[in-house]
């Protein structure tokens, strides 16, 4: 399984993601500069977290014009996997590869802490190692993670089982108190209609080693690795 991690000016989880894939999970992993257009022959492209272009104007608004985005679009059209984590998710939304948009957190503050996620759909390339309903402990760290979408499109997401993670409590109950940012329908992660592009606000790369309080992020990476082998 070969992974590519895209570096935009202002990415700051690029090395963390690379570290988990390569050093912890032993997968072949390369970096791409945002101006690259050749995705070599990677199976999965990851857009990591950070503040691409400082998140100036809007999160992801400038990064979506990077040359690599055209190649990523092509990669997705071929049915290959694309993952956006946090800022990467926002960039994929701006680029139209994933639905919805992120508003400022309802609490108007940056929030960094562990949250609980309920796995809503384990029939995707990103969640096949999880049990249906499995609760994962993974941290968030964002200022704009308040998922917003029109009512009609939300109904479509629900109907197509595109919502793969919702914020929940430790028992897996999706309750308003467990929603850290005001996201509509407690959405923490979604896939596109075809199911090969995934975005999530929580950071699985920060929860993939015993030393870092949780290893639940590995379920997501392992799902991707499983899928190909």
């Amino acid at each position, binding site marked *: 399984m070969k992974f590519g991690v895209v570096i935009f*000016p*202002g*990415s*700051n*989880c690029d*090395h*963390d993601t690379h*570290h*988990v894939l390569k*050093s912890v999970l032993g997968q072949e992993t390369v970096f791409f500069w945002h101006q690259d257009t050749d995705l070599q022959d990677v199976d999965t492209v990851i857009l990591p*977290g*950070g*503040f691409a*272009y*400082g*998140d*100036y104007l809007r999160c992801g608004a400038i990064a979506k014009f990077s040359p690599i985005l055209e190649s990523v679009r092509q990669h997705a059209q071929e049915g290959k996997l694309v993952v956006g984590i946090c800022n990467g998710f926002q960039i994929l939304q701006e680029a139209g590869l994933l639905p919805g948009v992120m508003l400022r957190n309802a*609490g108007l*503050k*940056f*929030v*960094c*802490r562990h949250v609980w996620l309920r796995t809503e759909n384990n029939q995707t390339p990103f969640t096949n190692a999880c049990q249906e309903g499995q609760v994962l402990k993974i*941290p968030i*760290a964002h*200022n704009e993670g308040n998922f917003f979408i029109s009512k009609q499109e939300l109904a479509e997401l629900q109907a197509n089982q595109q919502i793969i993670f919702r914020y929940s409590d430790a028992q897996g109950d999706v309750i308003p108190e467990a929603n850290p940012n005001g996201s509509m329908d407690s959405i923490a992660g979604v896939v596109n209609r075809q199911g090969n592009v995934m975005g999530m606000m929580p*950071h699985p*790369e*920060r929860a993939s*080693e015993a*030393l*870092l*309080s949780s290893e639940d992020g590995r379920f997501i990476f392992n799902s991707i690795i499983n899928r190909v082998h």
Partner: protein
Amino acid sequence: MEITLDLIESHGLTTEEYEQIRKRLGREPNLTELGIFSVMWSEHCSYKSSRLHLKKLPTQGPQVLQGPGENAGVIDIGDGLAAVFKMESHNHPSFIEPFEGAATGVGGIIRDIFTMGARPIALLNSLRFGPLEDTANQLIMEGVVAGIAGYGNCIGIPTVGGEIQFQETYSHNPLVNVFCLGIAAADEIFLAQASGVGNALIYVGAKTGRDGIHGVTMASEEFSEDAESKRPNVQVGDPFMEKLLLEACLEAMKTGAVVGIQDMGGAGLTCSTCEMGSRGEVGVKIELARVPQREEKMTPYEIMLSESQERMLLVAEKERQEEVLEIFRKWDLDAVVIGEVSEGHDLTVYDQGSKIAQMPNKALSEEAPFYDRPAQRPAYLDELPRWQDLDFPEPSDYNTLLQEIVSSPHLCSRRWVFQQYDHMVQTNTAILPGSDAAVLRLKGTSSGLAVSLDGNSRYTYLDPRMGAMLAVAESCRNVVCCGARPLGATNCLNFGSPENPEVMWQFIESVEGIGQACEVFATPITGGNVSFYNETNGAAILPTPILGIVGKLEDLKQIRESSFQNVGDPVYLLGETRAELGGSAYLEHLGLPLSGPCPALDLNQEKALQDKLLDLIALEYIESAHDVSEGGLLLTLAECCFPRSLGLTMEASTPLRPDHYLLSESPSRIVVSVKKEKEEEFLKRVSDLDVHKLGEVTDEIFQVSVNEQSLISVPITRIFQVWNSFLDGVFEH
């Protein structure tokens, strides 16, 4: 323009200093030169009141790779790696504009670290505000926290710890001390030195605007009521630009073509050019017309004194400058050759080819004036009330006392603050904020680094020397409690006006106290920062030296957290509890006047305790360790219980009044929980210490009896709730 007395005074120079300038130049300076001298000779840049005394600090040790005098200190941490760290204040800018002041403070300290060739891996901060009952203080705190978060989060360096205190003295003079730690290859440290005549001076980063002109001089002036009108002087930070600078500079350094590098912080282009020339014993020539400018019609005076942020000055090998420029272009950064290293020892400034200033580098930097200012023991020290004379009755209900203590601003949880900081990015944060020290793992090794910042201005006010020693001791103790051995120190010394002999006395005593303690703990000072003139309308702040200690954790398996781990583990207190309530959080909580004496510290006893704890941890007897400080034993025990919602059954006996016993702040004490099956061996090992069994960890109820009288019995979750949510209650109403 004629140099008048008014002009000299408005530049913050004395007439004597002006005479010295004339003597060094052998002529009258012009306006640009006067401006350049005034910033370089300001307290902020020249340390003119403190230099003499800072020399007393221990700075040597086999582990020290770079001591004071560079952008940051460097210590050897084995595995071919070096820890690069420093602390700096940004007090005055943060009062004028809390968000940008704090943000640019963070930006500045980060530049100091990557300038040395290190990748920054952690930020910490030490903050002081006025009481939260006042909305103005709330707004300052909210802005400062948001500013630190805004900068650190964006650039992707985790803010992993720190400390906060509240005191009336800081109402109009908050303190924002920021610390940054970086990692470099031990043999690839870069210095801020120019060398090689003909080598290129490369300006990189943000364009120069009229930002903070005379900001440095402002930071060395007392605040007056018209501080509001100084607003336009405040710089605005751009963390995205700095992220690009960080990556590009580290990449450029890898080429081997970079000879020296310094950031343009306070006093911008002036400071970076003359200091690099001075350290490298060479001359420096620059052409201002080549400096990238953001505003039109800037004068040479303005360009030289601008404090625009996110700018760096590099010296690159002449033949390889293109290689370096190419890297900056890749990162979309403005990079321009603005001058060169020259023969001689002068800083020479040209504008459109004509020479407009020429001054000896050394006269501006190393040979700037310094003073042995008069010092006098403050009169207040003889008039301090003694806490023993205060009349405060024993509380009738200790359950209520506990609730009140944990929900006081001094002792409540800092979660509201650190949740706004990205404290996990870079995935090295082995202990999340809230424990005694922050611990960062070093990827690719089995080791880690621990960092703690500490200082207690109530103690330093009561006894500047003892207070400073207590700060060093506590910082080391915090590092040791995590399982790490202290290796090096940095400090940030926040005081009033050095022209006031009583403040000067406080300063000298504190510096000497830090020196004494750092000798004993074998933690040389590798750098730091002095912030004078922290006064409002003539009143100085309480003297506030802040210590930062960096320690090495040889084996990450030996990390210890402050929280109890397992039900049934026996709990011990190492160290003696005396009736020491002077300067305590307890008296502060009761609203009593600040009273002495401050707790007494025996440095050798403290060192022995710390060494012993490290032994016990290495032997794997210890499950958790938490130092006893503000809030005494009572708060310490509650904090041990909170993270895992565990309880405690404690039975202690003491000749002291129970509240004195529970809230005394005697130093050199550590609460440990011991592996049950190792208890006997543990006791054999600690037979030479003052050891008291307190009780054992339980699963739910926090129970305290003293002298066979049950004082507290309450579910830990209820106390946790109060402690955890206090700051939300203040800010999220």
